[in-house]
């Protein structure tokens, strides 16, 4: 599944990127998203539930659903 589908409080790992936009993948990688990193949805924005705030390892990062959709994850335990 993709990161935008993650429910709050569930921890998962990044498995890869899927986007037609190479630029977006580079941006996501530069801020730190990488394969096998641990991700958890922490907060949702006030309007339309956007942006989404994720914990990436120990770092907090805000994305919109469009960006989160480019990240593939594997839900664990």
């Amino acid at each position: 599944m993709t990161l935008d589908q993650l429910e709050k409080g569930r921890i998962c790992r990044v498995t890869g990127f899927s986007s037609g936009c190479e630029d977006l993948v580079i941006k996501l990688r530069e801020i730190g998203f990488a394969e096998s990193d641990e991700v958890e949805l922490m907060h949702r924005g006030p309007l339309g539930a956007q942006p989404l705030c994720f914990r990436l390892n120990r770092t907090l990062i805000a994305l919109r659903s469009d960006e989160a959709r480019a990240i593939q994850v594997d839900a664990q335990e």
Partner: protein
Amino acid sequence: MSRLRIALVGAPNSGKSTLFNGLTGGRAKVANYSGVTVETRTGQLQTPGGAGIDLIDLPGIYGLKARSTDERIAIDLLCNGRDGEAPPDGMLVLIDAAHLRTHLHTVLQMRAIGRPMIVVLNMIDLAERDGLKIDVERLQTELGVPVVTSRATRATGRADLLACIDRETAGWQARSAADSTVCTIDTDLSAMQREARGIADKAILFEPVMNRLTRQIDQFVLHPVAGPIILAALLFFMFQAVYSWSGPFMDALEAGAAGLGQLAGQWLPAGWFHDLIVDGIIAGVGSVVVFLPQIVILFLFILALEASGYMARAAVLMDELMLRVGLNGRAFIPLLSSFACAIPGIMSARTIDNERDRLTTIMVAPLMTCSARLPVYTLIIGAFIPPDTVGVFNLQGIVMFGLYLTGVVSAVTVAFILKRTVTKGSNQVLIMELPTYKLPNPRDFLLSLWGHVSAFLKRAGTIILTTSIILWFLASYPASATSLRESYAGMIGSVLEKLLAPIGFNLEIAIALVPGMAAREVAVGALGTVYAIQGGEENVEGLAAALQGAWSLPTALAFLAWYVFAPQCFATLATARRETNSWAWTGFMFAYLMTLAYIAAGATFHIASWVGL
């Protein structure tokens, strides 16, 4: 041998500005959101070993594949040098120890440039307090470059760093001369991340989940319902505080200026010099300096919001709203900065990597009520709006809030229209790191506050002083003039008066608006000078009293409406010109703001007159 030039490189929020200030005693602005360090600063550093080093502070970067303008500036300077200067001899690469795993690939990318470097594992004390355990020696072995730790809280944490600089940099200059070629930035990001994660696995001995305090605070601050309420309350409190806390200080300054004027009036023999000092300089500069307390309080709030880490949260809370208007959550940061001053606001729009969004943000930034409008608003509100209470609120405070709100609503409307016409384009992404909350470093905080305060005082001492003197001369001569209208200033003003009479402005306003084009608060000084000359010796109650006698309420309200829009600031226009690199956009900004100012003032004047105010 020339001085060694070393660049300070690191991700946003890695503590670069704090380290820069600590090492150089310099005055770099510190902030917790991405990329506020939009201009490179150079500071001087003398190591215990006697080496003289020029330290260059670069905008924060996560890697070498930059998108936004300020990141490109940093990378370009790092790799190729700039303005004919060679690239730096070496780098101090900072990484926040608390985010080692996520950001380690940035260090590997910098290593790929192939220049000498030292890795600074910064804020190690805060990471250790979280429970993180890092094997620094292992990290150094794995990276193959020197690694040194640095503490956030104590200067003693920098002794190791300085010793390391002395030890390592000895051969840097010779080396960089040998290979001062353009560096390759063709990096394979995913391979580098894989390598970085591998190193992190070996060097991190224990890694707890996240900073607990940050997680607990965010439960409230980023809550879908409580979050926006907290933000609105904070902003409302900030604007009320600017208005109410400053009162006693402003009264004291006002009394001081009046006393100084009287003292000078008694000591100086009557004559033109007496008039120049009392009516020109003390009345002109004094009426602007009085507003220093308000400006200090406003910057106090904005800097505290930045340095604590709250500002990025505010951007998140505002993102969806801004998106619907056609802007981007990131635009919230430049726009909020513009409440202090549009110049840093326009410059920090560089962090927006979509060119059209950046342009839209720049175009609407001057609509945010900057601190230079405070003197104007305060003067007019104080003179014309009664200090009654409505419910629990002060009527004057409500009018002030209304003026701020008008600016914001106009900005939103203009952005909405622009995004659907001239700056149309694809919607852009939001990818933003939210920093860990921390108490602002008092030294950085004070340095930054002083930077803003001294800029205001410098303006008061230069532009406002000069315009006060020139205006005093123009309004006082020729000596044969018996009224303001017959003076040189009156002759110039009467031309403008015809244009401004339909919107309710009188001759004095027309005269004050001419020097007021240089900077907004100059108009207050100019009014001070004009009315001091007109009032002569009797005018002791100050400018507010003089205005009450001379202006009708509709005129005063029209003047306020004018100031919500009027682009009366050369520095802002010059900055917009530089940042857009386009005379057409700058001209457009000036023209649309002037038009709005004229329409708003006219409408206010006629509606207020019609209602019978």
